[in-house]
């Protein structure tokens, strides 16, 4: 192909005079418009629907009974997650142990509590008195007994709920913690050992802090899940938010407005919960390249200009 000399006037005079025109994404605009229209329609129809009875929603949204339930839901979530995390870490370490008995026990634990429906477990703890009327501590296979309890007084609905949720959570948490521990390079343990650190110190100071980076996102998920799962304990009347809501609508039959109250509160709590998760992720992400990460809201806002055509982009 012959190379011809270009005419001098066609060459760019000064790069600053050129305006780069970005591609217009007409398809994206159309899709966004359709989606917004659909959303506005849905919200509009909900707002106008008389069956929602916003006055009833407003009346119960800040009722004392609801706050009592909220309080129970919150402490139950916190306590069940605490039990789950502590017991789960213990089970995870047992599963990684070289001792076959500890390994067998922990594997059996996970098998049992992950393998049966949570609803069954909650009901089981709630009706434990039907299995053992009295609980006693003594020496097995003898008649020697040190203390004895009445099962029903030892296991009120709230304690039964906590046991059910905590033990179930421990089974799931143990798998998350185990994955976290196994994600840490074995070279880290060797380096710590070569400095004279004992196994427990190595686990606490070197392995677990690094495992946290892998553990926190799924545990955040578990916490959010737990907050909503506490609603199940209404089957043993544990006086959580959902139990109380059910009590109310069983009397006044305002089922839909009260479910909206429940949904609004669960949504609000979950939103608040994502704040500490982001904070923890930043804290345990120290030393990694992606440590500084933006909140979802910020990501959404900074993502917008990409959708809008800009004239500020120039080739320079």
């Amino acid at each position, binding site marked *: 192909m012959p190379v011809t000399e270009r005419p001098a006037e066609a060459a760019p005079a000064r790069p600053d005079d050129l305006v780069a025109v970005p591609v217009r994404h007409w398809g994206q605009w159309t899709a966004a418009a359709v989606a917004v229209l659909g959303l506005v329609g849905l919200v509009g129809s909900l707002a106008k629907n008389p069956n929602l009875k916003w006055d009833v929603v407003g009346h119960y949204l800040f009722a004392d009974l609801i706050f009592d339930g909220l309080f129970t839901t919150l402490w139950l979530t916190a306590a069940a997650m605490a039990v789950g995390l502590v017991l789960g870490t213990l089970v995870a370490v047992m599963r990684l142990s070289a001792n076959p008995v500890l390994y067998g026990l922990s594997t059996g634990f996970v098998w049992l509590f992950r393998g049966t429906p949570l609803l069954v477990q909650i009901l089981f703890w709630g009706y434990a008195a039907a299995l053992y009327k009295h609980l006693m501590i003594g020496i097995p296979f003898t008649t020697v007994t040190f203390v004895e309890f009445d099962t029903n007084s030892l296991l009120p609905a709230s304690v039964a709920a906590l046991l059910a949720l905590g033990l179930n959570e421990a089974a799931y948490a143990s798998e998350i913690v185990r994955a976290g521990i196994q994600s840490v390079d074995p070279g880290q343990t060797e380096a710590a*050992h070569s400095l*004279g650190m*004992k196994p427990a110190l190595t686990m606490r100071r070197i392995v677990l802090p690094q495992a946290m980076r892998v553990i926190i996102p799924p545990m955040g998920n578990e916490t959010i899940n737990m907050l909503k799962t506490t609603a199940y304990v209404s089957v043993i009347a544990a006086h959580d938010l959902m139990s109380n809501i059910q009590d109310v609508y069983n009397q006044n039959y305002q089922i839909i407005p009260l479910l909206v109250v429940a949904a609004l509160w669960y949504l609000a709590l979950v939103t608040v919960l994502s704040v500490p998760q982001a904070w923890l992720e930043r804290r345990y992400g120290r030393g990694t390249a992606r440590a500084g990460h933006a909140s979802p809201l910020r990501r959404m806002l900074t993502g917008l200009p990409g959708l809008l055509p800009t004239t500020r982009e120039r080739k320079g």
Partner: protein
Amino acid sequence: MARPMVHAEGVRKHFGRLEVLKGIDLTVERGQVCCLLGPSGSGKSTFLRCINHLEKVDGGRLTVDGDLVGYRQSGNRLHELREAEVAERRREIGMVFQRFNLFPHLTALENVTEAPVRVAGVNRTDARQEALRLLERVGLADRADHYPAQLSGGQQQRVAIARALAMQPKLMLFDEPTSALDPELVGDVLDVMRDLAADGMTMVVVTHEIGFAREVGDTAVFMDEGVVVEAGDPRRVLVDPEQERTRAFLSKVL
């Protein structure tokens, strides 16, 4: 003559049915630099890891400064040491790894102070001062607050050396310390090691750096297939070896 720092007699080790060390005899005197060379799979790294009990010895006798590694002898019996006792012995043996193994969640300074503070019980201020002095020594005083991910490979390895030195070891083990480095970064790490050797530190170095072994090493040990093929003055073993196997290896790496 003072007792040797490392003394091995017929040390054996196997992984399953694979025999990795088939009776190693080796002595490293106090203040000496011993370089272990050989093809990969020759067992040199395994032997090095036996010295601080990262690998358990299956047979023979291995002593560090007169103490049996991993065992306590009373009369005719060998008692295996408990984890705490093994940890106690390891405090006095520094180790530097091929892949650095710095703690990524701690800064360079924290990497160096972690063991002195948590293991040796040195107070935080003193540990910090000593750590800064050590980082200065390896030429990284200005990188004290950087995380490992923010350092180059050569800088990470020098922090790792400072971290090992912080426990004031009487013996330093180096497991291919420059093998994972870009060629232009190897020099800085070797300079630090040369400086250490000149200071009289007893060192066992697994390396492929023939030049370093010849220049700094007091003894060179050539290993192949789990046995010591040839050992002695590096200026002889690595220049004019007696064994055909050594000669063949050197002709490939030089």
